[in-house]
């Protein structure tokens, strides 16, 4: 990074913190601190929802995912618009009319205290771990690509977030989300523009798109049904819908965003517009990855984008073998480059026969290069059995640092850090509101003053922030456990959603049947996780429908007990 990059990066981050602190002034009670006095317009709600959902990994990983696996990941979001409509009809009016501060407050109103507490604790456990990873994951990538110290990176990102989130609460979070999304989108458009202008002479954007398509990277839709296939249209619409319903309807980090809407109308508009713009945005980010793939048909990519692993293998006894593979890979790339050129000429000739023949040659050259890459990865694994064989998270940032001009590199890194900060601030804000409203105020100290709860909320935000930083610092020692932590959310989301859906739609089912039904459904989800290969998106419908099913079965038993 050059001086100009540091100036752009520092200015962007300082602006976010100062603006957040300034906009967040003036809260006098927890309604002001956690819900911005329910004063937000739809556009702030919309951008805040989007910024909370889109973490740094979204922007780092999605282009890499399209580079390696194509654009089929976009189907993951197909359930989101349906979820937004369902929540606009059900959850938003109920939450607004009850004037709740957290989603879990509703559960006590509908069921009882133990159900509210169970849902709150599940949220605190899952989201608490996730907040640490939201800081750690991008910090790890910066360490590898930019050589930053991971501990300082964790500490600085975490501290910046704590400053404005603790001082200004939700007002600061929502308003900084607004500008963070602006920086993020500007950064992504700039990156896309730079990929296009870095394409070699004689290769247009349309031809690059054709090239990516011929190599299977524009596979946005897959109608094939397979329980074990993570991303197809069915798992996206059905599994995705349940996941998005859980996330937006029952996860306080999202619920809190739209509870800040000044009316049902403003909250609904925020959610529904998210249902309209989210998929095109995700498609665009994935398309950047597909274009990056087309770009690297003409520019030699590294064998593996995680340079730290390359350095490890080059310093080991396998160095000679690896260097040989690297030479082979370069030769294979030259062959592939030639075939890609032929493909472009065939496309320009518009002769179907030529195009088909060129595609076959190109696919073969791509498979040859891939085979050498796989051998290199296998060698790295032999050298370091604990290494992650995926390098998707490093692809986009490698391109940015190598091919983009000074200033723009700083802007894109600022965009990625802004994404990390936006998710983390939403999470800390929600962790604090749940801790204070559902646990402290409800069970430990019921008759405090407004000032007391406001101060407690700020302290809770700082404590959760410190916890997130400490977890991020510790995460590097967790190794493969990190994946387990990531999956944790999917294990609990379905049953939590089930509890809420029983509350919304099954008026005859009572608290005890729902509470114990949730335990049985959770057991079913855990069984699927430990003993089957069912893709994780299906855990959400299984958990959710499981609660409804078991609660329905158990209800007569509890009715008998009561009578």
């Amino acid at each position, binding site marked *: 990074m050059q001086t100009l990059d540091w100036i752009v990066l520092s200015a962007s981050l300082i602006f976010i913190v100062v603006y957040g602190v300034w906009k967040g002034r003036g809260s006098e009670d927890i309604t002001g601190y956690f819900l911005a006095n329910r004063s937000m317009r739809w556009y702030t709600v919309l951008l805040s929802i989007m910024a909370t959902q889109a973490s740094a990994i979204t922007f780092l990983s999605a282009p890499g995912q399209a580079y390696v696996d194509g654009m089929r990941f976009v189907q993951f979001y197909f359930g989101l618009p*349906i979820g937004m409509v369902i929540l606009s*009809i059900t959850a938003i009016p109920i939450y607004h009319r009850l004037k709740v501060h957290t989603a879990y407050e509703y559960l006590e109103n509908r069921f009882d205290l133990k159900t509210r507490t169970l849902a709150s604790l599940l949220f605190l456990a899952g989201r608490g771990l996730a907040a640490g990873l939201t800081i750690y994951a991008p910090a790890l990538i910066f360490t590898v690509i930019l050589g930053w110290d991971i501990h300082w990176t964790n500490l600085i990102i975490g501290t910046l977030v704590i400053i404005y989130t603790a001082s200004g609460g939700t007002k600061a979070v929502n308003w900084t989300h607004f500008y963070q999304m602006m920086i993020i989108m500007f950064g992504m458009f700039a990156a896309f523009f730079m990929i296009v202008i870095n394409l070699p002479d004689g290769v247009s954007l349309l031809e690059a798109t054709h090239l990516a*398509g011929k190599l299977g990277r524009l596979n946005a*839709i897959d109608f094939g049904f397979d329980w074990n296939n993570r991303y197809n249209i069915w798992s996206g619409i059905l599994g995705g819908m349940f996941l998005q319903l859980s996330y937006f309807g029952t996860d306080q980090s999202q619920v809190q965003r739209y509870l800040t809407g000044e009316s049902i*109308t403003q909250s*609904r508009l925020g959610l529904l517009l998210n*249902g*309209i713009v989210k998929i095109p945005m995700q*498609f665009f980010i994935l398309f950047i990855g597909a274009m990056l793939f087309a770009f690297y048909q003409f520019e030699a990519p590294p064998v593996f984008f995680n340079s730290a692993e390359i350095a490890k293998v080059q310093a080991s006894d396998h160095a000679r073998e690896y260097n040989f593979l690297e030479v082979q890979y370069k030769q294979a790339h030259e062959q592939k480059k030639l075939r890609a050129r032929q493909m472009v000429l065939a496309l320009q000739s518009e002769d179907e026969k030529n195009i088909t023949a060129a595609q076959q040659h190109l696919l073969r050259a791509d498979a040859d290069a891939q085979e050498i890459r796989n051998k290199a990865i296998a060698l790295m694994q032999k050298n370091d059995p604990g290494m992650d064989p995926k390098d998707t998270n490093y692809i986009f940032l490698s391109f940015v640092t190598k091919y983009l001009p000074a200033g723009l590199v700083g802007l894109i890194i600022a965009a990625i850090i802004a994404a990390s900060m936006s998710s983390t601030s939403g999470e800390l804000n929600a962790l604090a509101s749940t801790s204070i409203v559902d646990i402290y105020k409800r069970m430990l100290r019921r008759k405090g003053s407004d000032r007391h709860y406001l101060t407690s909320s700020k302290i809770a935000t700082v404590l959760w922030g410190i916890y997130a930083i400490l977890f991020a610092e510790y995460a590097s020692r967790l190794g493969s456990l990190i994946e387990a932590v990531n999956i944790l959310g999917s294990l609990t989301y379905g049953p939590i959603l089930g509890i809420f859906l029983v509350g919304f739609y099954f008026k005859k089912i009572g608290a005890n049947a729902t509470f114990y039904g949730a335990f049985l459904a959770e057991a079913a989800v855990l069984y699927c996780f430990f003993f089957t290969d069912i893709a994780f998106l299906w855990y959400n419908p299984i958990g959710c429908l499981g609660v409804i099913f078991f609660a329905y079965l158990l209800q007569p038993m509890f009715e008998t007990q009561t009578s």
Partner: protein
Amino acid sequence: MKQKTTENQQADPPPPFFKSWNGWYALVLLNLAALILLFYAFTRYFQ
């Protein structure tokens, strides 16, 4: 801590552009259907 769940408080402003929220819900779902069709055409065209 049972709270009242009565239909209450101030009247909520109507949705913009449509007479009722059903128009908005239809718009979101039609947009999803259009995107799926568009992506399908995109996948097929560039395959």
